[in-house]
């Protein structure tokens, strides 16, 4: 299913506590921000792939992310060199645009950042059950009600998308067609689907509120957790490694200028 991205294989990332993975992703994202050297960024990108593959996330799954990002990547790589205006060896110039090799590398670096940070996000989604992720966020200080709302939002995305498909079918059976005219016309054409969907969402919300109340939400009593997440030895080892590598790279970056330049 498209919306539940969790990969049901037994890999080392899957076994980690969600909080460990959140730390990993945050540190990784920070490195993508502070590092400028193209080769360093590419190395980080390769590292993410190694992590995903070594944790038995199928290549097909990773390729899916690439396909989603392909258009953005192409646009960045093609357009960036024209607007970056970085000084450097000139390749060619057309009218007001001068394209330099430095600008081309900068475009590649930006694209690498976008793909890398997206993939980091998918590291969590591919290797963490949604409920564990929410539990992790709650343990990190997110209020329980927020966590519950978040997990229910995730839970009902497939339901509502299924409902939307049924509504489209029902309107099509009455001769509804959306592919007419400009954007305004199309939006207006979507009305029969959107209104029916909104009514369904409201009705579902009503019942859900009641269903939560009769299952004890809002009683004011403290709750227990059945299968709580816990940091195991592997988590501490990984956290220590993350801290060590992150501290080292940040030290090198700011004290020694490692990876500060684009090339």
């Amino acid at each position: 299913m498209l919306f539940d991205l969790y990969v049901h294989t037994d890999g080392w990332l899957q076994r980690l506590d969600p909080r460990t993975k959140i730390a990993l992703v945050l540190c990784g994202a920070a490195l993508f921000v502070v590092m400028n050297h193209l080769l360093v960024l590419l190395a980080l990108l390769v590292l993410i792939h190694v992590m995903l593959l070594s944790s038995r996330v199928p290549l097909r799954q990773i390729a899916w992310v690439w396909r989603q990002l392909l258009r953005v990547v192409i646009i960045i790589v093609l357009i960036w060199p024209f607007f970056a205006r970085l000084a450097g060896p000139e390749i060619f110039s057309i009218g007001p645009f001068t394209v330099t090799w430095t600008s081309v590398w900068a475009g590649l670096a930006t694209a690498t950042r976008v793909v890398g940070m997206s993939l980091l996000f998918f590291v969590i989604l591919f290797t963490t059950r949604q409920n564990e992720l929410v539990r992790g966020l709650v343990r990190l200080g997110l209020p329980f009600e927020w966590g519950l709302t978040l997990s229910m939002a995730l839970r009902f995305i497939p339901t509502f998308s299924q409902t939307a498909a049924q509504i489209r079918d029902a309107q099509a059976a009455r001769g509804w067609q959306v592919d007419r005219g400009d954007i305004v016309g199309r939006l207006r054409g979507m009305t029969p689907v959107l209104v029916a969907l909104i009514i369904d969402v409201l009705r579902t919300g009503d019942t859900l509120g009641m269903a939560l109340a009769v299952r004890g939400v809002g009683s004011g009593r403290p709750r227990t957790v059945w299968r709580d997440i816990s940091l195991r030895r592997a988590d501490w080892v990984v956290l220590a490694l993350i801290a060590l590598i992150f501290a080292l790279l940040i030290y090198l970056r700011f004290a020694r200028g490692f990876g500060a330049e684009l090339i």
Partner: protein
Amino acid sequence: MSVHLDDLHFSYPPISAGAPAVEVLHGVTLDVPAGQSLAIMGPTSSGKSTLALVLAGLAPSMTGGVLTGQVQVNGQDAAATPAAVLSASLGIVFQEPERQLFNMTVAEEVAFSLEGLALPPHEIGERVELALAQVGLTGLEERSPWQLSGGQQKRLAIATLLAIRPPILLLDEPMAGLDPAARREVAAVLADLRRTAAATVIVLEKDAEFVARWAERVVILAAGQVVLDGTPTAVFTEVERLHELGVAVPQMAELAARLPNLVASAPFLTARQAAAVLVPQLPTLAPNLHSPLPTRQPPVYAPQPAIDVREATFRYENGTLALDRLSLAVPAGQFVAILGRNGGGKSTLARHLNGLLRPQSGAVAIGGKPSAGRRVGELAREVGYVFQNPDRQIFATSVREEVAYGVRNLGVIGQEAGQRVDEALTVFDLTAVAETPPAVLGYGLRRLVTLASVWAMQPPIWVLDEPTTGLDVRYTGILMDRLRSLHERGNTILFITHDLRLAAEFAERVVVVDGGQTVLDGPPAAVLSDAVALSSFGLRPPPVTRLSALLAPYSFPHPTLTVEEFAAAWSSAAGNGER
């Protein structure tokens, strides 16, 4: 007392400012002793669902409105206790399971209620295991709730409450939307609860056959008041009264009321009980029982089929093979009932008839022309499709607009469009609500609106996907009556249903679809009486047919498909006997 209601009145707040409040409960007085298995029945808008919300402490706290009188649930004042607190005393299962299951796995769904009770984790684990075993879901702990079948979802919803172990359980239409096999699964769970009498169980239900078998006590609610209250036998003897109220009656109770010479005999509610009463009376009839049933005249159809599906195969993206070289030819003007388990391919077949789905191999022809290459909007001229859930299509700001929508899409405009809409509104008695937003109407009326909107499009072929789901006797009657008149005018009707009584009464042909193929196909008398074949597809003959099968060894005519047929056979024999 588990539940004590004294002169309970409840009104919803007015729909718009200035409008009068809507009183739905007018003085309900009811005592339910601990451990009782009680069924509450009543037509649409009888106040059943509101009563359920009041008992669960959800009305008026979450719905708004005004409550007077007393409501005591397990000794607590339900009107003054927060629902979350009251939930430890009374657990409620709502009608639509997909709106009350919100966890990622089956086990966590059950555990969620227990986490709220602040139980220690090891006890939660034990209770989850036990509750899932009680409803027969052991082994599915790590599945996603929304990947379960309808019957499994219902049972899971019951398990989430059983785990809390409240002294009172309340179920709002536990059988709604389930196929016959799933109904039996849920009925088995409820029968278990009744046997152990561990809790007071209150069920709001339309399925009279289930109520007759399960309940200790039946309460009939109509227009916000208790109008009948007693054992199933006592209540279901009042057949005429129940018909008037629009409450379903077990087929055998209906039959008992139709057999004139049974006044003094013991009442019966099931085919087996009926046979026990009727068999001793058969010898006096025996000499007259040789005349066979008048056979239904097989109608003559045009040679050109209206629907012609040839070797259609369809596989969904997730790999499910929904149609497996299915073939079905329906002559123009035939009334066909399609039966079969959920997931067997009925709806997939129906969706091929108006082009919502296209066969991956094989062909579909509608009105003699292949449907390949014709758009859904084009096929809508010929195939009117009524979806299972009316709310999938309702969007307009008035009933009139909703009914006009399809007509307009066909390109019909001006006076003719107006005439068609007016006619459709009249046919379905919707003229009075023509300017009301359809979304605020009751469920039965919303269903009629969707029928009217198809009616106005005047398609020669009607495909209806479980259109009677959730309807009470009265609305089902209106729906079937209109379908009958469409059929009389020569329209082709394809009617998907789980209700074998309706199939027996209205269809000229019965087709059972299972595993993506047509597995049984023939006249109702042949298909609906074949108990052995039906049972392999999760179906059973209607009660009156089971009864005639039980009486067949005594040379009673078999099969009888309807109460009328049985009563006619019985009284013609009895009438002759007296002479």
